[in-house]
């Protein structure tokens, strides 16, 4: 059975039992349910699907959401590539219906192919600024995903170049993402659509597929 065949039923199952979005939050919804469960799929570098869980925390007068998003690309090897993003987010500013949200995150990633396997540590910071009503919202998105360090274990590349060396390497660079987020909230459910374009941090060495899109369904409880 291919991953595609496994992933789609899994996604449907997740949706059926009530999961929800990634770390997307509609701060204006008025609801203060403690738990956010999400399922998402999209295209970013490659096609992927994922689940996430977030927990609403109250620190003094400040509301925060801490959570984790786990994404897997479609493909025949279910777990050889993945991304785990753990974040904390909060509204920094609000004036009228407009709000600025900041979300710093720690990113762990794994990539494996016949050539090599990479385990990566990185950091991501996202900012959303836009108009948010209880039932819907629209916001501009800016994020920077910085890869910090990667452990590389070579496979076929050793055949081509026996002197290639495994180990930790400084990757120390990243990609920008510019986009927009639309969201719709009804009762305890939310839906988020993100679209945009990403660039290498020098705006020259860009990802092969420049566009990204993600659709997320979220349940609050």
């Amino acid at each position, binding site marked *: 059975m291919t991953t595609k065949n496994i992933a789609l039923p899994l996604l449907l199952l997740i949706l059926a039992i009530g999961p929800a979005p990634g770390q997307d939050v509609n701060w204006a919804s008025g609801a203060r349910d403690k738990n956010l469960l999400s399922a998402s799929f999209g295209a970013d570098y490659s096609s992927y699907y994922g689940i996430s869980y977030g927990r609403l925390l109250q620190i003094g007068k400040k509301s925060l959401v801490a959570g984790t998003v786990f994404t897997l690309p479609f493909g025949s090897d279910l777990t050889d590539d993945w991304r785990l993003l753990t974040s904390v987010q909060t509204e920094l500013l609000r004036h009228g219906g407009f709000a600025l949200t900041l979300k710093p995150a720690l990113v762990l990633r794994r990539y494996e192919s016949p050539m090599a396997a990479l385990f990566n540590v990185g950091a991501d910071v996202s900012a959303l600024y836009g108009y948010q009503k209880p039932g819907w919202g629209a916001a501009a998105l800016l994020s920077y995903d910085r890869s910090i360090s990667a452990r590389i274990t070579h496979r076929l590349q050793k055949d081509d170049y026996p002197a290639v060396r495994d180990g930790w390497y400084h990757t120390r660079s990243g990609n920008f993402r510019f986009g927009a987020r639309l969201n719709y909230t009804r009762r305890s459910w939310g839906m988020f659509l993100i679209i945009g374009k990403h660039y290498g941090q*020098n705006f020259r060495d860009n*990802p092969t597929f420049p566009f990204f899109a993600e659709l997320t369904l979220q349940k609050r409880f």
Partner: protein
Amino acid sequence: MLLSCGTEMTEPGRLVPLTVAEDPALPSAFINGTRLHTEAFGNPDDPLLVVIHGGPGGDYRSMSGAKAFSGHGFYVVFYDQRGSGLSKREPESQYAGENAVRLFIDDLHAVIGHYRRSENQKVFLLGHSWGAMLATGYINLYPSQVAGAVLAEPGGLTWRQTSEYLSRSNKVRFFTEALNDAVFAEQIIAGRPEHEVLDYKAAFFTNYENAPGNVIGNPGHYPSWRSGAVAFRALIANAEQYGFDFTTNLRAFTREVLFLYSENNRAYGASWAATVSAPYPGARLEEVAGCGHEVLYFGWDDFFPRALRYLNEMK
């Protein structure tokens, strides 16, 4: 600890092999303003057979079996093209402007000039993929200088043809492991401009063309030294901007050309071979059995006798 430990990806020789600019022990020659990785086998007075690799940005490692022609009366010359393989890296600006493709033709002309002993020494070209396109560009410019050519699956002889072929051979297959293997690492090795890093990352793209079920019929990985990522990227961008047409003068080349296509490349086939080879007045089409696009590596057993027969006829 993760922030402080580790090695720079650009440290010479750690992730990609040293080039002739970094390792003087590698065989090389200073040609047309750059240093090329180059080797020659056989009697220098025999007819010259210049082997031209694919890409752009590939190298001749998977074609090195062609040194066998040196045992059959040919002086076989290999070279890694400008900025590719073990040849010296060059700045991206060298591949900009309307004359970028012409620069590669000039390099080939200079390679021939470097190894050719006399005007009477016959010159044969053996090109694969982009190398067969480049060979055609050379023949189009210097038809009287070439005694014959073996061309294995040139994508096209104009940019329009080539882009049509690439749309079939590189067709994106979403939801596949092959796509992940090619591009997922771009979020880990991201936004780095150094050539060594770009070359290293480009090697992951071979996962796509050689993945199980690939369109071009490769049964697996084939050897290479280094992907010349900058040369590849810049030349493709250059072709998109300026285009090229290697057929404008091909009717002047009346000699027979051995035009080969592979049995297993579903993006090529006999009909595309007929289309691409049409501007050659003397094209002889033959199918190489049991292989896909990497004809000289995976299809050597069938390729070699066909090519040798042709070359001996033309010698």
